[in-house]
């Protein structure tokens, strides 16, 4: 049996830090996608309750879809329970292997992001606590605003390094 070792997608990336900006990889913990069936009633309350119970954050992805995100990996048995918890109204898909997260924070964070995305980053249009799905450059990303100058970016694993390099380039003038 070959020795298969899981390597984080951004394992060899050290945080990029300056007074104005900080770009850092986030732990590859738990990412669970929840999709509500086309005829099911609104599941917002159920999804949020499930996330609360399991120590995950429920972040809207699209109408009837959420990402449930946590810093720690979820045990196999717990994951099995989570995936089936809202059946038949909603189905879960384990995406812990599939999405990689990074964090962009600091007074220049908005200026950096504005180079890559056309989402309105004004606080009134995009207040803290909100998530959006958008493009950063050519890469589809899920963007969450934790605080005015604190963003989390989740991208598909295969694009994580490219997204990091793009963001690092956008940060360059502030480093």
């Amino acid at each position: 049996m070959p020795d298969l070792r899981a390597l984080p997608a951004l394992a060899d990336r050290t945080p990029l830090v300056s007074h104005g900006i900080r770009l850092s990889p986030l732990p590859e913990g738990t990412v669970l996608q929840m999709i509500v069936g086309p005829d099911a009633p609104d599941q917002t309350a159920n999804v949020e309750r499930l996330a609360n119970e399991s120590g995950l954050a429920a972040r809207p992805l699209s109408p009837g879809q959420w990402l449930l995100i946590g810093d720690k990996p979820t045990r196999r048995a717990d994951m099995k329970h989570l995936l089936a918890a809202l059946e038949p109204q909603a189905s879960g898909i384990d995406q812990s292997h599939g999405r990689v997260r990074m964090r962009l924070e600091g007074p220049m964070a908005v200026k950096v992001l504005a180079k890559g995305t056309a989402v309105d980053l004004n606080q009134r249009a995009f207040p803290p606590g909100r998530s959006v799905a958008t493009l950063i450059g050519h890469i589809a990303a899920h963007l969450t605003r934790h605080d005015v100058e604190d963003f989390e970016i989740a991208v598909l694993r295969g694009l994580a390094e490219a997204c990091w390099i793009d963001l690092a380039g956008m940060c360059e003038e502030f480093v």
Partner: protein
Amino acid sequence: MASLVPCPHCGSRPKEEFTIKGAALARPAPDADPDSWFHYVYLRENPRGAYEEYWHHTAGCRRWLIVCRDTVTHQVNTSQDAAAAKGQAA
């Protein structure tokens, strides 16, 4: 300009986030005559003015939308969720 498309779920987004399928036409019945199907599959109007198209918000909410835009001014007049427009749940 049509380069900013209002998504009913995500708000104003650049056209780069979308994929355009083309004219939003009513699909014929499965057993409709071959002429109706030929028209549906191959023949397109090229109107000067209001035009309804299916747009997919590929890099956003990934919902199919029906976007009505003016082919002369590029003004987007309406934009709605295609499933909601058909009376299905969003």
